[in-house]
């Protein structure tokens, strides 16, 4: 599936797009089916739920604009997850990096400037990105210097970093006119201007498209992307190919943290206009799920971030109109992603069972041969 990164041949490219479309349609159909089953199990009419979902999300330009606006930060954090997982590093600290990015971006937006608006927005975004990048850099340094397992260290870092961000919002940078734990509103020059009047959709859309284009080129079309994929598949082969695995690993982690922090700062600049204690909770893990279902391909991440946002909004709509708690959507999504994660094994398991049934007389080996290494990750 990732041949597009290795050999950019036009024929292969069309093929990849067709495959992706089929895959997306199938996955989405499964999600819709499970969602309908869940709605029916909870005693409501799936058709009414579908109508409610469509009404709330796609009825007019305001709904569509709101949907796109919601998906933009998810796309960036999805890129962050895809970048680190594709490179073979499990940065599970995206949540904390995103929230710290939002807090630092909010501080820069409120207490530095005002400047010429594009410059100020860029400063907010870069400051947030650097904040997230520093956290990820420090953790990757611990990994390459002392061998500290990044899965556990990044998971623990979330709690520390989020508490630190809340501390910043509760004490030094608190807006005294607001409830506990909210920072000052950022200056007007640090806010992105609206694209569709009356909605939260801003010119930030252009920024996200630009980021996606650059990342697509870097990760799927360039020599750097080849090395990146190679690191993810086999660090030892990468080392033999002359890649400095330590420095490259730190680059992978740091850029992932930078993107996560940028996603947080983006939320502040585009929609929220300040950091407050609950901002961004859960988004880091949403990004990880999106990257997983997209199997770490940048354009697929964009698509699935949009689809994921649609599902969240649709679930909210169903809750409003029919009264089914919106969390059922997350349950359905998680089940489907589990299915994606075990897909290869599930297929070969079923094949093995069928074969087993079709020739029961054949003496089977008592133990199966060693499993092949998991592909496409």
């Amino acid at each position, binding site marked *: 599936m990732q041949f597009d990164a290795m050999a950019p041949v036009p024929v292969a490219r069309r093929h990849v797009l067709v495959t992706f479309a089929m895959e997306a349609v199938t996955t989405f159909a499964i999600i819709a089916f499970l969602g309908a089953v869940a709605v029916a199990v909870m005693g409501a009419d799936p058709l009414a739920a579908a109508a409610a979902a469509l009404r709330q999300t796609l009825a007019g330009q305001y709904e569509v604009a709101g949907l796109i606006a919601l998906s933009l930060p998810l796309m960036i954090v999805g890129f962050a997850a895809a970048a680190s997982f594709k490179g073979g590093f499990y940065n599970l600290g995206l949540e904390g990096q995103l929230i710290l990015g939002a807090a630092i971006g909010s501080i820069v937006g409120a207490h530095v400037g005002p400047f010429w608006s594009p410059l100020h927005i860029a400063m907010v975004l870069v400051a947030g990105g650097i904040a997230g990048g520093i956290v990820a850099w420090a953790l990757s340094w611990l990994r390459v210097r002392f061998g500290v397992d990044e899965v*556990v260290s990044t998971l623990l870092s979330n709690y520390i970093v989020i508490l630190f961000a809340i501390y910043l919002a509760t004490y030094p940078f608190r807006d005294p006119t607001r409830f506990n734990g909210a920072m000052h509103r950022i200056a007007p020059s640090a806010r992105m201007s609206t694209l569709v009047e009356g909605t939260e959709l801003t010119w930030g859309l252009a920024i996200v498209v630009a980021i996606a284009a650059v990342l697509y080129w870097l990760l799927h079309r360039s020599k750097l992307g080849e090395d990146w994929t190679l690191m993810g598949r086999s660090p030892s082969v990468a080392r033999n190919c002359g890649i400095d695995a330590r420095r490259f690993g730190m680059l992978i982690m740091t850029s992932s943290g930078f993107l996560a922090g940028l996603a947080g700062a983006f939320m502040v600049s585009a929609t929220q206009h300040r950091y407050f204690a609950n901002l961004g909770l859960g988004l880091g893990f949403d990004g990880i799920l999106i990257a997983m279902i997209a199997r770490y391909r940048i354009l697929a991440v964009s698509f699935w971030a949009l689809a994921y946002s649609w599902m969240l909004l649709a679930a909210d709509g169903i809750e409003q109109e029919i009264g089914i708690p919106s969390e059922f959507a997350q349950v359905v999504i998680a089940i489907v992603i589990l299915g994606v994660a075990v897909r290869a094994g599930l297929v070969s398991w079923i094949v093995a069972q069928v074969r087993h049934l079709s020739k029961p007389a054949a003496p089977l080996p008592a133990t199966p041969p060693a499993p092949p290494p998991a592909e496409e990750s």
Partner: protein
Amino acid sequence: MDLAVFLLAAAIAYAVPIVYAGLGGQISLTAGDLNIALEGEMLAGAFVAVLVTYILGSPWLGIAVAILVGGVLGLLFGVMIVTLKGDVFLVGITYNFLLGALTVLLLSIIFGVRGSFSSPQLTGIPIMPIGPLAHVPLLGPVLSGQTYVAWLVVPMVFAWGYVLRSTPLGLRLRALGDNADAVRSAGLDVARMRLGVQMICGMLCGLAGAQLALGTLTLFSSGMSAGRGFVALAIVILVGQRPWMLVLAALLFGIADGIGIKLQQADVPAQIPQMLPYVVTLLALCAVSARRWRAARRDKTSA
């Protein structure tokens, strides 16, 4: 003296769920799987314990069903990583997410509340009477407030230590973690062993969750495991295959948590002390990893 009593009591309260989840994690890691689903399985255990206790009125039934459900969830996790060969981290992250969302959903459907549920009908795990021991200074006040489940840690750790060191089963588990092929060539069913390990790990996480929700507090709140599963996992990486070190490390982090609570009362910004157990865990992880790293290097240069 009061402070010491407070700190030790807080340490035990914090440590017990972590020790149970950590035992599960240790068994799993001994058998070669670094299980990050501890967090979600523990949360599910907490929810089931509260639900069953509320409906049936007995915390013992709550614990029993929590262990049972934990076992089923652990087995399911095992099927996904062993039978279906899913990546243990990817499946683990998603599993945690799934169980987190599922508990919130069920909380909302069954109890009609968002966030947290508590009720006067909800009885906690009974406290074990310790007789004359209660009059011993320092230890008395600390130990007299502990539940039966908290006390159960002691025989459990003894038993696991014995199984791990001195039985063929322990040897097989260790061999499974070191070299699964060797175990396979010895004629054992590796897949079945790993599944069993995951089931036991899930049962321990269910018990950890029950103690978390019905031990010191009697409530369920969404996401109440709050990273304890991850702390348990970090501790397992720290201590390797030493069960008693697991208890000791959990107690040390518990003391850090207790100091945090005390600092909060002393007008320090609340977030800084709340960070304490996580910071201490991370620092300890760095220190131990660095030592192992250096030792590994020394071995390499001397060989």
